[in-house]
């Protein structure tokens, strides 16, 4: 790191040193500068890389060409040591050569070196650095650099190439040698040495004539000279005798730059083989000719036979080319001998969609597989086609499968018949299976009381879940699956079938899934010519759905009548003359008159205003209906029931009006409810108002309470030294009174809030005993009231909202205290039953008069002079919010007991 910092500093200094340049002063300087500028521009623009280093070997100047060649910018190079860019392996060598060079002369010898470019590529460069001197002192070095990377690479590959060829030439087993233009050997390979027994050392440098004196005038000499002269390569075969053996050589001479190269191959063996082959071939041809003649004879006979056959006989080779077709083939396809001679392929004769299948089949057969009849569509010449059943077998010649031989039969007729059978079968199947009825036939018993099922259609499975076989195999199957209740009836029908020739009966049949299905069986008997029953034919249909619908209709009408009967509204039907024709139970109840008496009597007799009643039904007959017609029914005892009548006319199938159907609605309950609702609405409005008032009151209340606090504090503080008059003694009491009233106002407001806002209880486990105790602690009990708290049983925790319950308890305690203005006893009792927890508050106060008991929990009811009447309603509401309830017992003059009942948590 230190080193690098130093180098950076050095470079920085260098950059600074370049800049300051004092202005030239003399003409000589100017000339010099101009010349320097000229020189500089030359150097800058030349493509030759040039660099100057200082005496320490750091670049003082580089031109653009140098920078470009190594991939750096000029600025990056200046100031950096030249050595940094050298290939590490070259550094020492370059340095020593360089040092040696420049120490003895001004110019170092040419040095070759490698540099690493910015992109990591290595360049090979040469340079001849020269020393730069000023006044005999070395100030730096200048170098013109030549990039010889490419040259190096070329040389390298050339050298490698030559070597390769040489190795190749040595390794080939054929004789190979080269001669110059004077037929002097320049190369002699190993094979040449082996063949001639002359070593390469002895051969190279000598001439052809020296080594082979007999060569003069031979074909070889002639060819070599011709190749040298014409520059065209030439080959010839020469015969040599070596070691008393005849050799044949194929000699090829190729022109080269320096002479010729000759390639000699021993073809003695090849020639011998060729001759042998020729001889055999001639012999074979003769044999084949004789054999062919015989075969042709046998084939002719075979063909004549084949032509007699009515079926198409054919032969194809392995490529599907037709080799033979018999006369029937030509006739069936409309092809001519002419077509055949031109060449036919099996694919031309088959529908194109079947080609792939045909090829696959052919391969299988040729592979030795036996394949039976296969159907193909054969094309005729005129474009029509016919279906054919084809039988083929492989043609084997000399153990090799060479094609197929086969017979094709026109099966147009057969196909048509098959199609007809299939279609008619399909039609029949469709008729039977699509028919919801199950078809059956049976064989009559001789006693003519029953029959055995002989056939039953397959769709029986879809209706009853059983297979036809189950019916036909077991004669008792059918009877066993009929609902036991239906068996006697069905069996009694059967003799009638045989007597009348026809019968239809319904019964329940046990489906495989365990349910009963309603079946309609319709059977007929066919008779033989003698008139005796021959066969039973019939069908079964599933009528479960129909039965169900019938049942529904029956049930519905019963249901409708029941509805009318059970209706709480009095219903009557009235004739146009006003006589009652029918009534329901409710009418009997409301009139206290029996049904029998009602029917036939006048409708209007049962109302407080008979005239209005008569007008009502008359209106209904005229208009078709009346709605919400108000009447009052008077019963036998004189009790009046307010009702609203809705009445409409009813008609028979022809549309003739039969009477009026009148329904009364007892609205006495509704009238009561309406009164309640009005109350509730009033309460809701009050609730909303109080919520708002309560909210707005909080600030004035706060202001009053805090002012009282401040006033009291002021009164408490010691009198000032100035000696103001002593405080009026009653003032504190007055403030206390105001404060109490403010407290009371606050209670009214919060009670109102409690009553007006929705409650949300948040139950948690609570120990009731401590809750009651806590509540008691927070209430100021007057001296004259004695409180006792009894816990009759150890109690577990209860799930309740403690905050809510505390409010209830404190309310009840306060009420009790208020009920005993002259003192008394408050007894709080905590006990439990199986399911509930009971907290009772018993006082010995004034008690509640009988007539007030019912209104106790109504809002705004109070007996207290100063009560707002919300305390108990709020308590009730709070307790009910916890799924509890509140009860009260009281005797005037003896006291009251309020009891809170809360459900216990199930363990």
């Amino acid at each position: 790191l230190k080193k690098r910092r130093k180098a950076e500093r050095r470079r920085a200094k260098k950059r600074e040193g370049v800049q300051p340049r004092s202005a030239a002063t003399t003409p000589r300087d100017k000339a010099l500068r101009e010349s320097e500028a000229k020189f500089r521009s030359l150097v800058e623009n030349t493509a030759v890389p040039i660099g100057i280093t200082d005496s320490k070997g750091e670049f003082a100047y580089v031109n653009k060409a140098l920078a470009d060649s190594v991939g750096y910018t000029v600025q990056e190079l200046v100031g950096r040591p030249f050595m940094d860019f050298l290939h590490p392996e070259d550094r020492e060598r370059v340095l020593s050569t360089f040092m040696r060079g420049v120490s003895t002369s001004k110019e170092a010898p040419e040095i070759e070196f490698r540099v690493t470019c910015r992109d990591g590529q290595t360049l090979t460069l040469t340079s001849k650095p020269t020393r730069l001197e000023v006044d005999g002192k070395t100030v730096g070095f200048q170098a013109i650099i030549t990039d010889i990377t490419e040259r190096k690479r070329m040389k390298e590959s050339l050298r490698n190439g030559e070597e390769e060829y040489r190795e190749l030439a040595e390794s080939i087993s054929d004789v190979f040698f080269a001669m110059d233009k004077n037929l002097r050997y320049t190369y002699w390979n190993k094979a040449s040495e082996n063949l001639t027994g002359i070593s390469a050392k002895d051969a190279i440098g000598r001439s052809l004539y020296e080594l082979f004196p007999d060569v003069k005038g031979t074909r070889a000499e002639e060819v070599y000279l011709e190749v040298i002269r014409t520059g065209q390569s030439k080959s010839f075969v020469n015969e040599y005798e070596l070691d008393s053996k005849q050799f044949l050589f194929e000699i090829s001479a190729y022109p080269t730059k320096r002479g010729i190269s000759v390639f000699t191959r021993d073809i003695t063996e090849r020639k011998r083989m060729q001759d042998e082959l020729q001889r055999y071939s001639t012999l074979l041809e003769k044999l084949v000719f004789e054999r062919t003649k015989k075969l042709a004879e046998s084939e002719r006979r075979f063909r004549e036979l084949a032509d007699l056959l009515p079926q198409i006989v054919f032969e194809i080779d392995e490529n599907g080319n037709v080799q033979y077709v018999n006369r029937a083939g030509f006739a069936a396809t409309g092809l001519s001998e002419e077509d055949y001679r031109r060449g036919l392929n099996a694919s031309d004769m088959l529908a194109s969609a079947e080609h792939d299948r045909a090829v696959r089949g052919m391969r299988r057969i040729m592979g030795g597989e036996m394949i039976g009849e296969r159907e193909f569509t054969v094309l005729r010449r005129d474009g029509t086609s016919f279906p054919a059943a084809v039988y083929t077998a492989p043609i084997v010649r000399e153990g090799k499968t060479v094609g197929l031989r086969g017979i094709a039969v026109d099966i147009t007729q057969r196909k048509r018949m098959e199609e007809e059978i299939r279609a008619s079968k399909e039609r029949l199947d469709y008729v039977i299976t699509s028919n919801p009825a199950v078809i059956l036939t049976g064989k009559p018993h001789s006693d003519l009381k029953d029959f055995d099922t002989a056939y039953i259609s397959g769709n029986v499975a879809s209706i009853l879940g059983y297979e036809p076989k189950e019916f036909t195999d077991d004669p008792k199957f059918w009877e066993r699956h009929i609902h036991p209740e239906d068996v006697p009836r069905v069996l009694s029908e059967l003799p009638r079938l045989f007597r009348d020739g026809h019968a239809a009966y319904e019964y329940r049949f046990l489906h495989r899934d365990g349910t009963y299905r309603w079946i309609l069986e319709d059977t007929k008997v066919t008779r033989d010519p003698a008139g005796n029953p021959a066969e039973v034919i019939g069908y079964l249909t599933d009528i479960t759905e129909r039965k169900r619908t019938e049942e529904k209709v029956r049930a519905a009408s019963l249901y409708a009548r029941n509805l009318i009967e059970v209706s709480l509204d009095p219903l009557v039907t009235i004739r146009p003359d006003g006589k009652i024709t029918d009534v329901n139970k409710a009418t009997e109840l409301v009139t206290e008159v029996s049904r029998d008496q009602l029917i036939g009597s006048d409708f209007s007799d049962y109302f407080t205003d008979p005239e209005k009643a008569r007008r009502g039904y008359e209106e209904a007959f005229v208009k078709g209906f009346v709605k919400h017609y108000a009447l009052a029914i008077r019963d036998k005892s004189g009790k009046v029931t307010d009702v609203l009548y809705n009445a409409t006319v009813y008609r028979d199938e022809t549309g003739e009006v039969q009477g009026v159907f009148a329904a009364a609605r007892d609205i006495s309950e509704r009238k009561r409810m309406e009164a309640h609702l009005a109350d509730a609405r009033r309460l809701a409005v009050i609730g909303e108002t109080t919520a708002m008032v309560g909210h707005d009151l909080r600030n004035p209340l706060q202001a009053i309470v805090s002012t009282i606090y401040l006033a009291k504090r002021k009164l408490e503080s010691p009198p000032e030294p100035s000696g103001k008059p002593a405080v009026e003694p009653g003032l504190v009491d007055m403030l206390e009174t105001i404060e109490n009233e403010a407290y009371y106002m606050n209670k009214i407001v919060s009670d109102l809030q409690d009553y007006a806002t929705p409650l949300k209880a948040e139950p948690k486990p609570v120990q009731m005993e401590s809750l009651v105790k806590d509540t008691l602690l927070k209430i100021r009990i007057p001296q004259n009231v004695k409180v006792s708290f009894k816990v009759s049983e150890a109690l577990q925790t209860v799930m309740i909202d403690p905050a809510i319950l505390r409010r209830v308890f404190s309310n009840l305690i306060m009420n009790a205290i208020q009920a005993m203005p002259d003192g008394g006893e408050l007894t709080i009792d905590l006990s439990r039953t199986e399911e509930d927890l009971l907290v009772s508050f018993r006082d010995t106060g004034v008690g509640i008069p009988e007539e007030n008991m019912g209104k106790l929990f109504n809002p705004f009811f109070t007996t207290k002079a100063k009560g707002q009447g919300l305390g108990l309603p709020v308590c009730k509401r709070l307790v009910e919010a916890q799924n509890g309830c509140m009860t009260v017992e009281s005797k005037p003059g003896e006291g009251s007991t309020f009891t809170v009942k809360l459900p216990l948590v199930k363990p």
Partner: protein
Amino acid sequence: MMGGESLEKKRILVIEDDEVVRKNFKAILELEGYNVDTAVTGKEALEKSNANFYNLALIDIRLPDMEGTQLLTTMRDTVPKMVKIIVTGYPSLENAKDAVNMGADGYIVKPIMDTNEFLQKIKEHLKKQEEAQHYNEHKMAEYIETRAKQEETKETGT
């Protein structure tokens, strides 16, 4: 009488739009020895609480320019260490829970009938705040000491 044990007067911000209530609260709290500032609107409260330090703020749930809960949420971010007490009208439990969830340290029901209880509550909050601060300082001192010891052993160790 001093509001807390520290020598410095505790600072309280009363945020209340009712003039009489605001003035009374200020007077009552000043009697207890607190340094009391008031704000009429939420905006004013934010400005004041950003400009000055307050130990505690009483926030009326309904303000002329915003809901007290909204103010609460904002102040939770701007002055997290200030004790924030919501003053609500006749409350429901929901209301109070919301306030606490939104960062209130406590809630007081208005009208405050028992002023002494109210003052006690404020005192407790301030004491808790002081303890928390004290605890933090103590923790910091402890931490510094532990670190110092660690460094020491390291020095002597090498």
